[in-house]
C-alpha cells in the first residue's frame, strides 16, 4: 500500500490573444479496486464553470468552450491517492473486453512486429506469465529515447525505429499481447518521481486486469496512479484542445508525485 501526493500542472502561453478555445481533459484519477482518491482539487484559468462527463471507456472528462479572450490557459490538479490496494482490477459485470482484444488505431502490428513476435513468442505459461515475458523481451530489445517518435507514431513505426518513449513501449506491448491472444489496453497515469505523465499497459488474465509497465520492466504497483484507459493513446489523451488565434504557443507541463506521510 502507498499514499501518494500528486500534482498535475499545465500551462499554455500564447504570443497573441486566443478568441476561442475548446478543450477536454481526461486527467482525473478515479477510485478503482487498486487506488482510492482521498483528495482532489482542480483550478482552471481563465476561471469559468466547466462541464463534466464520462466517456465510453469510463474516463472522467472536464471540458468546455471558451469564447472570452485570453493569452494564457492554465490547468492545475492536485490531491492525495491511496495506491496498491489490490493487485489488479476485476473485470466489471457490464464491461466488454472484446474491444481490447483486436488491433486498433496506433496499437496495430505490422510485418515488423509480427516477425518479432514469431521469433519471441512465449510457448508456455499462463496469460499473465506470457505477457510478463513479452514485456521483458520488449524492454530488452527496445531503447528509451525522447524526441524520435511523436504522439501519432504507431506501434509498428516505433518498432521499426527501435526506440521511443512510454507511449511507444505501451503500444508495442499491446500489439504483442494481441498477437498472443491476450486482451490488452492502454493506461495513462502518473508515477512517483516522474516529471511528466506516464503510460503503461493493462493485460487481462483470469478476469483481472493487471498493470504492466514495459518502459520500466515492472508491474504497475503502488508507485503508480492510474488516470485513463483506452484501446490506444488517442482514446485517453490527457488533454486535447483547439484554439482560434493565439500565435505562437508555449506549453509547460509539470507532474509531481511523492510519498505522503503514512
Amino acid at each position, binding site marked *: 500500500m502507498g499514499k501518494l501526493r500528486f500534482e498535475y500542472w499545465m500551462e499554455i502561453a500564447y504570443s497573441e490573444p486566443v478568441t476561442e478555445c*475548446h478543450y477536454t481533459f481526461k486527467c482525473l484519477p478515479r477510485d478503482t479496486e487498486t487506488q482510492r482518491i482521498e483528495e482532489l482539487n482542480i483550478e482552471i484559468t481563465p476561471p469559468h464553470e466547466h462541464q463534466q*462527463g464520462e466517456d*465510453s471507456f469510463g474516463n472522467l472528462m472536464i471540458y468546455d468552450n471558451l469564447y472570452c479572450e485570453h493569452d494564457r490557459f492554465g490547468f492545475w490538479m492536485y490531491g492525495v491517492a491511496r495506491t496498491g490496494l489490490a493487485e489488479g482490477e476485476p473485470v466489471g459485470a457490464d464491461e466488454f473486453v*472484446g474491444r481490447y482484444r*483486436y488491433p486498433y488505431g496506433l496499437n496495430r502490428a505490422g510485418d515488423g512486429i509480427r516477425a518479432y513476435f514469431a521469433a519471441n513468442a512465449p510457448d508456455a505459461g499462463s496469460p499473465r506469465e506470457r505477457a510478463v515475458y513479452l514485456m521483458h523481451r520488449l524492454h530488452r530489445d527496445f531503447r528509451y529515447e525522447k524526441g524520435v517518435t511523436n504522439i501519432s507514431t504507431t506501434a509498428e513505426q516505433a518498432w521499426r525505429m527501435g526506440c521511443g518513449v512510454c507511449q511507444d513501449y505501451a503500444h508495442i506491448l499491446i500489439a504483442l499481447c494481441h498477437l498472443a491472444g491476450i486482451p490488452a489496453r492502454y493506461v495513462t497515469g502518473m508515477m512517483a518521481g516522474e516529471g511528466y505523465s506516464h503510460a503503461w499497459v493493462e493485460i487481462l488474465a483470469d478476469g483481472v486486469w493487471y498493470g504492466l509497465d514495459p518502459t520500466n520492466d515492472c508491474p504497475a504497483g503502488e508507485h503508480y496512479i492510474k488516470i485513463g484507459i483506452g484501446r490506444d493513446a488517442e482514446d485517453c489523451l490527457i488533454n486535447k484542445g*483547439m484554439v482560434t488565434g493565439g500565435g505562437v504557443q508555449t506549453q509547460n507541463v509539470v507532474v509531481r508525485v511523492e510519498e505522503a506521510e503514512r
Partner: protein
Amino acid sequence: MYDMDLLERTDTVNELLSRYGVKFGIYKNGAFKEQLFPFDAIPRVIGKEEFAYLEKGLKQRVVALNLFLKDIYSEKKIVKDKVIPEDFIFASSGYMAECDGVAPAKGIYSHISGIDLVQGKDRQWYVLEDNLRVPSGASYPMIARELCRRSSPITFANNKLEDNRNYAQLLRRTMDNVNVGGLTVVLTPGRYNAAYFEHSYLAEKTGARLVSSANLRVENDKLYYVTYDGRLEQVGAVYRRISDEYLDPINFYDGSLIGVPHLYDVFRKGNVALLNAPGNGIADDKGIYYFVPKMVRYYLDEEPILQNAPTYLPFYPEDMQYVLANFDNLVLKDVAEAGGYGVVFGNKMTKEQKAEFIELLQQEPRRFIAQEVIDFLDIDILEEGKLVPRKADLRAFVLMADEPLVWKSGLTRFSRNPDSFIVNSSQGGGFKDTWVLSR
C-alpha cells in the same frame, strides 16, 4: 409501351435539372469534379402489390437493424448469444467504442436508411446493401418528378401513381420525433460536398435551416445556432450530412474543419438529436450484412421477408471451401470499402491476380465477403434515341419516425456502361424516377 410525351422531353428535363444545379460531385484521382447526374425519363415502375411486399420487408429489416445498433452499443446480447461472432463486431472499422453506452433519443439510431435492392431475372428482389450512415439520393427523384410533371402533365394525368413529393413531410416528421427542444437544422460540410444540392433542397423542403459548422456553437452542454445578429437559438435536432469522423474535432478526427467542437458531448448528455446517430457503420458493414436475416429472426422472432443476395463468409471454413471451389462465379467485396470500390469479379481476374487475391483471402478471411453474381433484370434507358437495356438498382428510403415509414418512390440508378455490374453514382452512372402505382 412507354409514355412518348415524357420521353420526348428528356432533354428539357435534363436542362432544367442542370439549371437547378442538380449535380453530383465525385473525387477522382484526388481532384474534385462536379458533374451533372444524367436523368433518364423512362421510369422504373413498381406495381402496388409488389411495392406493398417491399414496404413490409423494408420496415422489418430497418426495425431489426435499429434494434441491432441499440444492442451493440449497450448489452451486446447478440454477441453473447453467439449469433454474431465477436470478431465481426470488435475487429470491424464500423464499430465505434466511443458510442458504447451512449443512448440516442427514443433508441433510434438509423432515422434515415437507404436500402439498395436489385431485381433478378426471376423477378425476385434482393437486398444488396444497407446504408445507415449518411445515405443520400432522395432529392434526385423528388426534383425529377417535379420537373417531369411540369414538362409533361399529360403523363401524370394518364398514370395513377403515388405522389413522391411527400418525402419532405416524412423527413420532417422523423426529425420532429427526436427533436429534444429547439431548432431543426441540416448540417452540411458545404458547397464542395458531393451532395450539396441535396442538402440545400432537403433543408428548403422541410423548412429546416441549412447550416455549416460556422453557424453553430456549443455552450454549457447545449448546441446553439448563431443568428446573423449574434443571438443564440438552441438546436434540438441536427440532420447532419457529415460523416462520423468529421463531426466533432475534439471527440473524433481532430483535423476536421467542418465539424463542431464538443457536439458529441452535447449528444452524449442527451441535449441534441443527431440524425443519424454516430456509430451506425457497424450495421452497414459488408461483413455484418450476412447476419441481417439472422438479426430479423433474433430480435423480431420473424422470418425475413426480404432476401439477401446469396453471400458467403470465408471466415467460416465451409464457406471458404465453397468460395475457392466456385471462385470464377463469385463477386468478392472488401468489407472496408464503399461506393463501388473494392469489388472484384472472380472471372475477370488474370491467373496471377487470382493467385495473389486468394493468398490475401486466406491471410485475412474476415476482410472479404463473396456473393453469387445476380442475373439482373435489365431495364431500358434511352440512348441517342434508341432503347437499350442496362443494369439498375433501387435505393429505397426508410424513415424511422414514431413508426417506420417507407417512401413510395426511390432512387433508381443505372450503369451507363453496358458491361458494368456496378451501379453507383460515385462511379458516374445516371438515374431514373421510381414510380409506385397507386392502383
